[in-house]
């Protein structure tokens, strides 16, 4: 019977084919996904016929089809079924498959690298497309490339040039004196992501780089953002701030492919202060002398004068003397990766070379990254995975941030009539070959120096060697239970050197110059063992669970040698130290944990999730242990109830989670530390009272979400509401110093963040040649400081020069207070008898609320268009609300540099204010009187310089072209793209004050740039300008 049917079938087929094959043709095709990657194993059928074939590993297929018009049906798991019409003359076809968004996020990498089906999760996650990170890359830090793509992420770029640490805060700030940065996890293990010396005030710092900037975007396979604590509970510690889960690439099976990615990006300063170009150096509308640095002088009309170098020059505007100081930096990125193997062993090998010039002359980053990953399937039950990454990073001539003799604030101070050609004559060489600074018209020659001196005669270098490696082994104990053991090591060896030639203000205060070298070794050891099981208890009731143990040990060792004063002038080595000084410090934190997590499902539609974790933390007092847990549930309503047809998918979820954090190293006992000084040096008791009863911090987090998709998954959204409260925060509070201690730590406080997030994905238009996808994210976060402690009601950050960051009970995290222009009870501006504004700085009143630096809402919108082989992606993002105080403008306004200071130079400015008795004051003033009242230069009235930081911009734009290639070519795929970041502003906020006679001023700084990536935010002061980058990128696959 079987034979018969076979024969019959054969005959039938033969007959059929014969009848058609009288006129058949061969079609060659390739099946690819939306990222142009081949889809292997896709099935291709002739519609209405039984003939068909499957695509090979490269997505290629060959199929004999009848002459004339033919319709092909292509299907593959995870993709939407497609039908393609072939014209009679078509013999080659490339078929692009669209992901089935119901399956798109099917598998998500969650905590500890555990992969789970998306629909089983009880909390919100968001994936970022890797192509969006590697296409238009922020040249220096992959975190900056996430800007605008993640709902409820506020990302700030550090001010230290290429490689600067970035700040990424998910769902608002929750820690007052601890870390607010999201945890970065690579391949299941948190990486060290510390930044040295982030600026804590407007004086600035040498902003270090962070750990995240060492992640090579080309090695990334996937990025998942776990915003809530529930998603992250299994990480303990800093996971309360959310987690960025990065998974890197593995070798592929049964094929060898080589990828080359080359990019070149030009970067230029994007947001610079707007300056006046009418009045030159001088005071009270008159030229004073060549060294007087303020620009309150006469009108520049090309008069002849003798400049600071004794040369005869024209007193004429140099309108580009700030802009032209910054160079166009070139960022080059070249990476090559080789991936291949067989079913038993796979290898991935990559090398990436980054060479990035900063916009500050001489500032360069050079980085080499080598990664080798080997995966082995040793037996059907036993597999191993091993990876090693070596990074060598060299950053030369980092600019200082902030005020203290940093090139940015120095160049901003340049008088409006001094050309860069004059400024470049910054030194004279003495007869013994020692450079001496030439005179320089400084607005304050104790801290502001010719920036060219700073660039050429000082050097802040940072070298990092980092090795990260892991070895993991998985054993399948039974079909339903496996165990994975993992050992992970991460060691960074950093060398930081600072050198300042003799004559460098502030820093070289001893003869011969200054040199210091700091060696920092950071080591993280991580070992874990995780059991992974799943059981079908009944047909409808299934369990999936993990449990295991983690050991983590983090060490930080710092050695510093300082040569303040060099016996041989400008010989920058410790060997020449006049007074060699050594300093050493170190910390170690060890945590051990056991955890269990289980997910129960009923009918694959209702899920219940629970986790529990116990930590032993060396920072805590004995018995060191504490516990926290999470519970959650979700339901696939679309699978449980009959919904209207247009609803393709509907899921609701709810969860509650706690995350604990052990605090800080070495707080339990009092210590005496040694410091160098006269005689034999000193011993000083720590001025912080120990806290023997230290408790862990706890973040409690509730989250509810809905995920829905409509019209056959054509569009959908996720909506999430969350509320998190941080308790038992480790706060440093002031003690009356007469106790002998200046401060103590307490566990107290309740800081609440709540908000919503909406992520919307839609295919707006789709046809054979054209596709338009829209992705939108929107979030709002509301923060409230519910309580601090009975002893402490307010915490201040930074100095109080432009504004002070304040955290006050009843207020919000990130409130800024500053001195104000006083108003009377009727809301009228008060002025002094001489007509100048009356400010609380003059009256000695305390600083008062100006605004809060956090955005109220954040939005990101990505539109992706594809037409044939062209694709265009545009990311527009923005922030609504938030106030930032422009300390840079405050500083410059005193010296008559900003554009706004040009008006009313000759006087006649009436502010229309009233005196203390409410009588109108008609005395007129001039611009210099006004601005020097608003700003005392380095200390001022923040009110005048506060800006609404609302802004929208075209963040990223990429135009790609997939070069059509013949199949038999050596090159399998090629893509060329033009990319741009920070293209232009769509909207910029204005100053809060509308000054009578002047109105409001437009913001000139970029609110995403910050002095440092610590908790001190919301105030600019000599912050490095943001950059606009434009470049090209070529991707080749062999």
């Amino acid at each position, binding site marked *: 019977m079987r034979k018969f049917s076979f024969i019959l079938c054969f005959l039938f087929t033969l007959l059929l084919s014969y009848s058609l094959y009288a006129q058949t043709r061969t079609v060659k095709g390739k099946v690819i996904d939306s990222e142009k990657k081949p889809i292997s194993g896709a099935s291709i059928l002739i519609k209405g016929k039984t003939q068909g074939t499957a695509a090979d590993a490269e997505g290629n297929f060959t199929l004999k089809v009848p002459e004339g018009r033919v319709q092909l049906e292509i299907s593959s798991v995870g993709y939407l079924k497609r039908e393609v019409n072939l014209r009679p003359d078509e013999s080659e076809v490339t078929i692009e498959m669209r992901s089935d968004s119901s399956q798109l996020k099917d598998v998500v990498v969650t905590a500890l690298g555990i992969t789970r089906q998306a629909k089983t999760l009880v909390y919100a996650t968001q994936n970022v497309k890797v192509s969006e990170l590697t296409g238009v890359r922020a040249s220096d830090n992959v975190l900056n490339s996430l800007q605008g793509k993640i709902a409820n992420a506020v990302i700030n770029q550090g001010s230290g040039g290429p490689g600067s640490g970035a700040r990424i805060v998910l769902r608002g700030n929750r820690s007052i004196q601890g870390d607010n940065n999201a945890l970065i996890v690579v391949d299941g293990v948190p990486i060290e992501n510390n930044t040295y010396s982030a600026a804590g005030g407007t004086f600035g710092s040498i902003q270090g780089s962070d750990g995240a900037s060492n992640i090579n975007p080309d090695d990334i396979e996937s990025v998942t953002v776990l915003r809530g604590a529930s998603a992250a509970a299994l990480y303990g510690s800093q996971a309360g701030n959310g987690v960025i889960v990065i998974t890197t690439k593995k070798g592929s099976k049964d094929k060898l492919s080589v990828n080359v990615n080359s990019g070149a990006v030009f970067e230029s300063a994007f947001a610079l202060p707007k300056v006046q170009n009418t009045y030159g150096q001088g005071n009270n509308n008159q030229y004073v002398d060549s060294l007087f640095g303020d620009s309150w002088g006469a009108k520049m009309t090309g008069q002849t004068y003798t400049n600071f170098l004794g040369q005869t020059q024209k007193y004429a505007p140099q309108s580009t003397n700030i802009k032209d100081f910054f160079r166009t930096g070139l960022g080059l990125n070249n990476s090559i990766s080789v991936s291949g193997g067989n079913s038993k062993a796979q290898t991935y090998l990559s090398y990436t070379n980054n060479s990035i010039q900063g916009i500050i002359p001489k500032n360069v980053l050079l980085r080499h990254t080598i990664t080798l990953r080997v995966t082995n399937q040793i037996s059907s039950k036993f597999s191993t995975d091993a990876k090693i990454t070596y990074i060598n990073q060299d950053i030369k001539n980092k600019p200082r941030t902030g005020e203290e003799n940093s090139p940015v604030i120095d160049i901003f101070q340049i008088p409006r009539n001094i050309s860069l050609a004059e400024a470049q004559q910054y030194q004279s060489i003495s007869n013994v070959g020692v450079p001496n600074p030439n*005179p320089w018209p400084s607005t304050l020659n104790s801290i502001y120096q010719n920036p060219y001196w700073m660039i050429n005669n000082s050097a802040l270098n940072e070298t990092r060697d980092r090795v990260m490696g892991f070895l993991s082994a998985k054993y399948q104990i039974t079909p339903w239970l496996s165990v994975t053991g993992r050992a992970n090591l991460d060691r960074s060896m950093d060398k930081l050197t600072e050198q300042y030639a003799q004559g460098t203000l502030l820093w070289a205060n001893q003869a011969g110059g200054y040199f210091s070298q700091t060696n920092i070794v950071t080591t993280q050891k991580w070992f874990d063992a995780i059991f992974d099981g799943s059981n079908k208890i009944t047909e409808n009731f299934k369990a999936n669970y993990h449990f295991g143990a983690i050991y983590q040990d983090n060490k930080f060792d710092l050695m510093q040698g300082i040569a303040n004063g060099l016996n041989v002038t400008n010989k920058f080595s410790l060997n020449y130290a006049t007074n060699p000084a050594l300093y050493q410090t170190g910390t170690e934190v060890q945590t051990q944990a*056991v955890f269990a997590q289980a997910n129960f499902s009923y009918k694959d539609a209702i899920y219940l999730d629970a986790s529990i974790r116990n930590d032993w933390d060396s920072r805590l007092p004995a018995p060191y*242990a504490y516990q926290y847990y999470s519970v959650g549930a979700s339901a696939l309503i679309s699978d449980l109830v009959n919904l209207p047809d247009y609803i393709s998918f509907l899921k609701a979820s709810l969860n509650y989670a706690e995350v604990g954090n052990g605090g800080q190293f070495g707080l339990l*006992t009092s210590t005496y530390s040694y410091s160098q000084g006269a005689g034999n*040096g000193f011993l000083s008791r720590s001025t912080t009272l120990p806290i023997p009863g230290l408790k862990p911090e706890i973040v409690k987090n509730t989250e509810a979400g809905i995920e829905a998709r409509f019209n056959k998954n054509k569009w959908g959204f996720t909506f999430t509401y969350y509320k998190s409260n941080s308790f038992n925060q480790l706060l440093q509070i002031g003690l009356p*110093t007469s106790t002998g201690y200046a401060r103590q730590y307490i566990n107290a406080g309740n800081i609440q963040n709540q908000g919503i997030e909406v992520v919307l994905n839609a295919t707006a238009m789709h046809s054979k040649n054209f596709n338009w996808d829209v992705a939108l994210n929107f979030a709002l976060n509301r923060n409230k400081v519910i309580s601090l402690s009975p002893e402490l009601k307010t915490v201040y950050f930074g100095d109080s020069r432009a504004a002070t960051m304040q955290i006050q009970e009843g207020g919000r995290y990130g409130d800024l207070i500053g001195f104000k222009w006083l108003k009377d009870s009727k809301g009228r501006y008060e002025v002094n008898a001489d007509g100048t504004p009356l400010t609380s700085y003059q009256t000695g009143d305390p600083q008062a609320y100006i605004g809060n630096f956090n955005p109220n809402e954040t939005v990101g919108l990505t539109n992706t268009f594809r037409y044939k082989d062209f694709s265009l992606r545009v990311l527009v993002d923005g922030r609504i609300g938030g106030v930032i105080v422009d300390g840079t403008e405050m500083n410059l306004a005193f010296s008559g540099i900003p554009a706004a200071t040009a008006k009313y130079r000759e006087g006649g400015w009436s502010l229309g204010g009233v005196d203390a008795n409410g009588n109108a004051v008609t005395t007129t003033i001039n611009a210099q009187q006004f601005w020097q009242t608003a700003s005392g230069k380095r200390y001022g009235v923040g009110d005048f310089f506060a800006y609404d930081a609302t802004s929208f911009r075209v963040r990223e734009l990429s135009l790609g072209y997939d070069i059509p290639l013949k199949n038999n070519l050596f090159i399998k795929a090629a893509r060329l793209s033009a990319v741009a970041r920070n293209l232009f502003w769509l909207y910029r906020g204005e100053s809060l004050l509308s000054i009578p006679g002047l109105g409001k001023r437009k913001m000139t700084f970029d609110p995403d740039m910050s002095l440092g990536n610590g908790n001190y935010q919301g105030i600019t002061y000599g912050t490095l300008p943001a950059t606009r980058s434009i470049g090209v990128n070529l991707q080749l696959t062999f």
Partner: protein
Amino acid sequence: MKKLNIFSSPLLYLLFFVTIIQINACTKDFKSINTDKNTIATIGPAELPFLFSKALSAAPHDMYNYQVAQNLFADQYAQYFACEATYFPSDRLVIRQDWVGAAFDPMYTDVMPQLQSIFANTDSTSAEYAMASIWWVYTFHRVTDYWGPIPYFQAGKVSTPSVPYDPQDQIYNDFFKRLATAVAVLNQHQGENHFGSYDLIYGGDVDHWIKFANSLRLRLAIRISKVDPARAKTEGEAAYAGGVMTLSAPITDPTANPGGDDALVNRSTKGNDGNGLSIMSDWNEFRMSASMASVLNGYNDPRVKEYFLPAVNTNQYQGLRNGLSVNQLTQPANNYNNNSHVGKRWSSTNVTDINGNVTGSATSLSTRQNIMCSAEVYFLRAEGAMLGWNMGGTPQTLYNQGITASMNQWGITDPTAINNYINSTATPIAPGDYLNSPPMTNIPVKFDPSNPAVQLEQIMTQKWLALYPDGQEAWADYRRSRVLKLYPVVNSDNPDITNTTTQWIRRIPFLLSEYQTNGAEVNKAVNLLGGPDKVTTPLWWDKN
């Protein structure tokens, strides 16, 4: 398959696993892991000398505290220097509480715990105990002379965040007792050396500490001479009788111990132990005051070359008035290049004249810092003699000896020059400043033969010149005596001082941080003050 059955319950597995881990969680090293290996946990005899050094270094203000603790306040109120920076309102009498706390907090956190550790770990009859006790008085008399009532008797004894303030008369009473006791103890150790090189003032020489303690006792006696004349006389005469500083040796190398009796504390280029006046001199935020210019130029005082550098632009010793407004400060005449920088010993090699010649010194950071000098003691004795105390000389001889000691101290040893100065009838001149100020006063150097009022002003004026650059003592002395005729500040931005000729800064208001952390006790302290917590309320010993 059967044998796997017992494991088929995941819960059992979990329980088993967690139990194993619970037992094995290895926490026995946690205490040592959480210990900072670069610090010391406990204090023993070997550590005490280092604590003493720290106390000696911190009390006259660390390098970076000096500006905010002293220079922006007392040094300006004493009119040694005037402010050049437009952004510092303190010269216009505004109290920036966040700055002036630097004269309070480190005394309690960087000096007091160190001294209390020495008290706790030594016998009260030991020289170490006595030397620490003398330093305690030096430290806290400067604190109470800023604020009046301060936390004193209970300071450092309680761990609860609340420390009571004590009235200034009781604090002074304790100062006198401590100094008398310390001298009695040290007299038993005469000729000995304690703390050796860890003593950054006298290298461990006990005999010098006796002179220092008696001189300090005399300073405090004169301080209370208006409020408690009888006690002042008793303490003052006992102090003189016990032996005070008499010998000033020339400072030829500002970084080396000059010998003689003068108390100067070593400074170092290492760590943050530099001379505070030196580190801030590079910042161009202060210059010579018009008061100093008027008197030093008028007297043709040879010390001017030690105290100041000629102005870069004019090569003259030029000063500006205290309390100039922002607008006045931006006038070219008030530019720092048109006024005199602090003297060479405190100026670094970054300080150059108009031709680019280095006018500073390569060792400025390690310039020793004045604690108390013999010249001051002669002037204290001169004043005591005027009050009828037994001070071993007449006001005039002691006055002349004071001038001589001061000249010697600053390296002026030519007897003819000193003699000419002492007999000079030149008077202070108009400083030629932006406001065309008149001369500060009209008295000559030559001691007035008859008029006690003039004599007293001469003593106080020469003492003011001799105390330079210790503005903290000079300001206290000015408030106590009100004899020195300083210029009124040009502008007051402090609403409590509306008339700068009849009102002056008489104290520092209690710290905002104290109101925040020790509020109840500060409020009680206001009652001890006998007036509102303002700059205009006089201290206990201020009877003007």
